[in-house]
């Protein structure tokens, strides 16, 4: 028996070193990120549950969000001169008349609009976000459509991905996803701020949705990065925060308005 044990021991030893040389093994379920084998349905792979009703808390940029700012109030916005000229020509009455009253409710600005959200799974790979203020709907698709995109829209086409905070090195352990990353393109030109500050159809919106728990409450924090080669001199970075509600209290769909 002794030689068998020794052979087992040697084999075991060799296997151990082989495993060590190959790098750590991750046996737990993986998210649908690229390069990790067959993708599970996004709903099943969700690292946290975003569904339900959420209410925004406006503690930042209050006077640009809770009331309609005056024309030319551009504080904080990394605009070029072309954008400033357009903002200077803002005419909310003309927007209303042209049916463009939703210009300040597009994907680049909607998370900053004081509102309640309802988040549901439309299907296993599409997260749906309804916003009561402006009655907007965003669709976060975890699997991109093979068909060509439709015409530009206020909410554009959003590609979603559960993502880890950091990427592993060449032999590193893939971390489990802990955030929702959403990239939105194909936008209809809109307003970054209610008072006519423009973003173009070239704008790309990258968002990170994080869930935090504190004292029995759940908080959804969105970090939004807007890049627009036409009107912005650098990326425009903002945050918005939402507290989860136990029910639909306060849910009040209201139409877009160019003036309020």
């Amino acid at each position: 028996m002794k030689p068998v044990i020794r052979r087992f021991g040697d084999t075991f030893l060799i296997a151990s070193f082989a495993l060590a040389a190959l790098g750590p093994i991750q046996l737990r379920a993986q998210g649908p990120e690229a390069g990790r084998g067959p993708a599970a349905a996004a709903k099943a792979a969700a690292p946290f549950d975003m569904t339900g009703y959420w209410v925004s808390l406006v503690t930042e940029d209050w006077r640009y969000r809770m009331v309609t700012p005056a024309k030319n109030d551009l504080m904080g916005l990394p605009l070029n001169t072309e954008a400033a000229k357009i903002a200077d020509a803002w005419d909310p009455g003309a927007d209303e008349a042209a049916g463009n009253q939703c210009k300040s409710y597009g994907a680049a600005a909607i998370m900053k609009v004081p509102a309640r959200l309802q988040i549901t799974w439309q299907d296993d790979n599409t997260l749906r976000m309804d916003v009561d203020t402006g009655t907007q709907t965003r669709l976060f698709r975890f699997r991109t459509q093979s068909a060509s995109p439709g015409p530009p829209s206020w909410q554009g086409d959003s590609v979603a991905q559960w993502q880890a905070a950091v990427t592993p090195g060449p032999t590193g352990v893939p971390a489990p996803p802990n955030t929702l990353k959403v990239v939105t393109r194909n936008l209809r030109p809109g307003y970054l701020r209610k008072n006519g500050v423009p973003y173009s159809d070239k704008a790309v919106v990258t968002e990170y949705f994080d869930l935090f728990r504190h004292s029995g409450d759940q908080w959804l924090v969105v970090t939004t990065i807007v890049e627009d080669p036409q009107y912005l001199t650098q990326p425009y970075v903002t945050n918005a925060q939402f507290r989860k509600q136990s029910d639909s209290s306060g849910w009040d769909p209201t139409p877009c308005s160019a003036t309020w």
Partner: protein
Amino acid sequence: MDILKRTSLTLTLILVAGPLPHAFAEVDLSGSWQARNQQDAMQRGPGPYPVDYTGLPLNQEGRANALSFSQSTLSTIEHQCAYYQPTYVLFGPQGLRIWTETDAVNGTTVAIKIGAANDRAPITIWMDGRPHPSKNAPHLIGGFTTGSWEGDVLVFYTTHMKSGYIRRNGAPASDETALTGYLSRHGDILTMLGIIEDPIYLSEPLLITRTFQLVTRAIRPLDTPCIRGYEGGPSEGSVAQYLPGQNPFIGELTNLYHIPREAVLGGAETMYPDYRKKLKSDFVRPDKCTLNCGGPGRGGLGAAVAAPAAAPGR
């Protein structure tokens, strides 16, 4: 050989069972993080209007305290070199320089440090499991902070601070204030959520979120040391404080932006979307911005943040 086998067995079990939770959870936050101050640009840049408590869940006592504050307070000798509380990381203009202090023997993380700013003390986030001091322990300007990892998010908790502010216009924070912070890294972007709870001056927790961007140019943690000197403060015999009903700036936001005084003075109600509906019937939008309007070429306040230093290879 037995030692080798035992080592290999341990190694195999670790590999098969998955990485150690501690090692798995820890994200490297070290580096210089430049503040992206586009949000709340005026508050985080030049400073807020003297009476602008919009979006702050102040209770009556907090509001009264805030209205008594005079900016001249900061020029009095005894206040000139007084640091802000750790809550200042949420509303001050500076970026963060973060590094880890490790145990010299076993290499585990003892603390994560956020370097000082020129008007904020350094924050030491103790990661070694030590408890917070007794509630009767002295309060320090830097407070006492512990932290832990929740997945890839660093959660820190600060107590034992001295009284201070939650906005740079004197909106107060008592020495009972507690700060819970969450640091979530997305590549080169760092999102910080701070939840400020104060049983003395706030009726609800105050949430502030801000974003930092990793840069390769080191953020200098400290400027020149603060040296006290005469700054032309209050005249002799006067006190840098406003008596009730005598704050001269109370109507400034109403004049400039037509924001009702009730909203200017804050309160939890002003944080919620429903309050916007309440404002709708009486609000008349000013025609054109006349002061602190930002925009291209206007003193840099169009962006209120310098573009991050070019990072080679990024």
